[in-house]
């Protein structure tokens, strides 16, 4: 690349300094809310009124975290967000596994066993990635009632799988398209069947796309609020719904430190995933857009 500003002349050096300054300022703007969130969550309540957003806590305390976890009020009940935190895991894990498995098989069938109309089937399913979910909320609520799944974790898992399949199919289909067909044809000549070819040839090379799909589904479902608030009951709420209830429960003094600690608890799992597997996270975000 020769289109970079090189530090040859004093003017260019000044430009480069400015460039770094702008980039660092931008980083600070992205960091500010996280920093405030962490600082506030570690302050006792009396320091919040006295100090300002960015003052360091004089007497750092984990009490807000413990309260958010175990005893803060979320609506009627006052036992913190811990139960809802585990609810989220209980919903996310099966939903991710099932949607990824189905997506992998769909992608495989669509690319390696092409049949007339496969493109049409794919386009039809792809559409599910894009609908505003408001348009299915009411029928889904009624259908879950008929299936006896209203307000249950199973119902939420079902909904997330149903609307996750479109994305996972997209991921795997686009990945398997780039795997040479010759490998499959050769195995087919040797008499290997549908599942055998999938198990022996496609699955071993699928690791990157499995990671992308799992991370994408995990963050999507963990961060979901709409389905959570529409289809869950008091005991089966995911942590995002509990967080919103906690923040909006007004009993006595507003405990901002507890709010921020609860927000951190709700944010940590996806943040950890992002830090550990950022590369795959970006790939998931861009898979449906630039890659095509």
């Amino acid at each position: 690349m020769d289109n970079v500003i090189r530090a040859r002349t004093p003017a260019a050096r000044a430009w480069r300094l400015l460039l770094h300054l702008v980039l660092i300022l931008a980083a600070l703007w992205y960091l500010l809310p996280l920093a405030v969130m962490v600082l506030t969550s570690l302050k006792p309540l009396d320091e919040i009124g006295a100090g300002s957003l960015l003052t360091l806590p004089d007497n750092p305390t984990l009490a807000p975290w413990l309260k958010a976890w175990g005893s803060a009020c979320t609506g009627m009940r006052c036992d913190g967000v811990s139960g809802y935190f585990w609810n989220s895991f209980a919903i996310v894990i099966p939903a991710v596994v099932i949607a990824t498995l189905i997506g992998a098989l769909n992608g495989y069938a669509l690319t390696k066993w092409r049949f007339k109309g496969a493109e049409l089937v794919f386009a039809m399913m792809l559409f599910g990635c894009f609908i505003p979910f408001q348009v299915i909320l009411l029928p889904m609520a009624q259908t879950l009632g008929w299936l006896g799944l209203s307000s249950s974790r199973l119902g939420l898992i079902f909904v997330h799988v149903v609307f996750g399949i479109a994305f996972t199919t997209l991921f795997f289909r686009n990945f398997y398209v780039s795997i040479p067909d010759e490998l499959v044809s050769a195995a087919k000549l040797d008499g290997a069947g549908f599942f055998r070819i999938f198990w022996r040839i496609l699955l071993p090379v699928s690791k990157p796309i499995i990671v992308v799909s799992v991370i994408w589904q995990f963050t999507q479902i963990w961060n979901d609020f709409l389905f959570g608030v529409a289809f869950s009951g008091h005991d089966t709420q995911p942590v995002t719904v509990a967080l919103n209830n906690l923040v909006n429960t007004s009993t006595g003094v507003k405990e901002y430190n507890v709010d921020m600690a609860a927000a951190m608890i709700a944010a940590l799992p996806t943040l950890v995933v992002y830090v550990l597997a950022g590369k795959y996270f970006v790939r998931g975000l861009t898979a449906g857009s630039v890659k095509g």
Partner: protein
Amino acid sequence: MKSVSTSGDAARPVGVAVSRPSVAGHLQAWLPKLVLAPSVVISLCFVYGFMLWTFILSLTDSRMLPNYDFVGFAQYARLMNNERWWVAATNLGVFGALFVGLCLVLGAGLAILLDQRIRREGVLRTLYLYPMALSFIVTGVVWKWLLNPGLGIQSMVRGWGFESFTFDWLVDPNMAVYTLVIAAVWQASGFVMALFLAGLRGIDDSILKAAQLDGASLPRVYWRVVMPCLRPVVFSAVMILSHIAIKSFDLVVALTGGGPGYSSDLPATFMYAHAFTRAQIGMGSASAILMLGGVLAILVPYLYSELRSRRHG
């Protein structure tokens, strides 16, 4: 769907010309379709069927519970005469335009700056992008705290000695919708940066060199040569961002709750409020169908170009 005897040809893996007329062979030929069938059925029922169902509900006078007394397009007419709907729709226009525009400018700008061989690029990129991993509820809760006039940014700046500094958009009915823009841009602009950076890395260096040999200045090279190459990226980003804007629900709930009053309502919160809490299922369905219309207006050109480029690529 084709019959068994002919689908043996159609469902063969590419490049294989042997077909076995045994039972097992037939089963093998059908397996791919069998595997896809549940997903197709799910898609037909839960996406297309439910859309139709919501449309049907929007033609009824359902209130607390769905009923099927048809009233034609009366709910749409009611919607058109509903002030709150117009506030929500106008807000979506303002929010959507600012959100998409600012994300594009910030994202493209940061990507171009980051592309200048910055030593700590990886760290900066990570910092720019992490908000995208958060839930919109978390984002809303944090920004509600930052924008809280009593204890947030306003009070911090006043504490620095600027006594008359005012930043109370969160409680100002005319400005509350802009707080949504701030939080949403904070969350999504890093993602747009990542899109642009990937696009920039994909541009052939020789084009840039040629332009520079012709004596074009650096900003000019970017504007006239690089940006046109990034047209597909801009296109994708606009699609994805406008899609996020139309679906925005959690952010509004967590940050402004649609308020003060209903001044920062968006169609997504309008729909939810009417369908689930205000016992106006008919009108709520009508608003959902209009949202779908909005998404389709953006989506159809996008899918068209996606599928076309796939065919050519």
